[in-house]
């Protein structure tokens, strides 16, 4: 059993994440049988200062499939729900292929990479 949580961002409101990468990652997560959290758009939650971000940033180690680590860190910070640098790994769906993102999400180890 993996000890970390998985959070997937669907980046619903812009075409900045290649659709095939988003679809590939979500499909693989669904097929894997793993537990995970998914949100429509982290930017929207940050814009609304939605309490979901506090829930998503708490609860221990987390791997986040979203976009650039610097942006994800800033979004959580701006919403007042800082991510922990020691227990957060961010996978960038803007630059990485779906397979590489999924491999890291499902890998048992956590490689913290917050800037």
């Amino acid at each position, binding site marked *: 059993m993996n000890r970390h949580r998985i959070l997937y961002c669907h980046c619903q409101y812009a075409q900045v994440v290649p659709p095939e990468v988003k679809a590939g990652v979500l499909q693989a997560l669904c097929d894997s049988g793993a537990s995970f959290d998914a949100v429509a758009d982290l930017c929207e939650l940050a814009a609304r*200062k939605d309490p*979901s971000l506090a829930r998503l940033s708490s609860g221990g180690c987390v791997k986040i499939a979203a976009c650039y680590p610097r942006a994800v860190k800033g979004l959580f910070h701006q919403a007042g729900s800082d991510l922990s640098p020691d227990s957060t790994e961010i996978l960038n769906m803007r630059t990485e292929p779906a397979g590489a993102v999924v491999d890291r999400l499902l890998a048992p180890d956590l490689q913290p990479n917050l800037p």
Partner: protein
Amino acid sequence: MALRDTPTLRILIDASPETEPLPDRYRTLTALLEQGHAVTLASGTQPVSPADTQPTLLLGLWKDTPEFENRPAHWTVQNIHGRSPAQIADLAESHRPAPRNPWKPWFPVIDYDRCTNCMQCLSFCLFGVYGVDGERRIQVQNQDNCKTNCPACSRVCPEAAIMFPKYKAGPINGDTVSAVDLQKEKMKVDISALLGGDVYDMLRLRSEKAKSRFSKERDADKALTERQKCLVKLAEAGDIPAEVLMSLPSPEEIARRAEEAAAKAKAALQPGV
């Protein structure tokens, strides 16, 4: 001001071995996410985000819908036997606590690891997006005022500390900032230098010239062309959408706002005032 309205509905899907498998997980998840919900698929393989006080809709394919003795008041339980992904999405929609206000997926995010609190963004932004907190630290205060697709403030930031996560290219989109980027940003940024002075002064000057010409020549078209030329030049220099520049307030209003922003920035930078 940031939007603060009804919290997102959390959809918690019980996918534990005690339930029947959800026939089309991917399509169901996609349908729910496209409606803007937050979804947790809990199969028991690993932890998920903890329970909180948000409205939560617990869904599952149970043989018999379970009775939860200590079910929190903000939880609703629904058996989704026989429902298609679209029907599950409709069900979720019917449990949305209230309609949500629209939001703009375009707003600045400050990288505080890079920000030096120089207040250039506050001085530059005419739309009052920036302000300072109780400790005089720059912050995004009125993100709804931000003009869609306009990254001008990140262009003026000398440290490339302002991101727009939905922007097309780095480092504005949050990509790592390299030394080359910083140099490039400096070149692009200094819109004022490109135009030989402060950008707003430049607009004012052009406008005044145009006005003067108008008064002398009564040539409104020429004055307008002159203003448009200036705006096009600005747009090219700073990757600023023309419609943003075209919708700038009047020169008098620009001057007033620029003074106001400069005073705010100055006050924030003065120790002990």
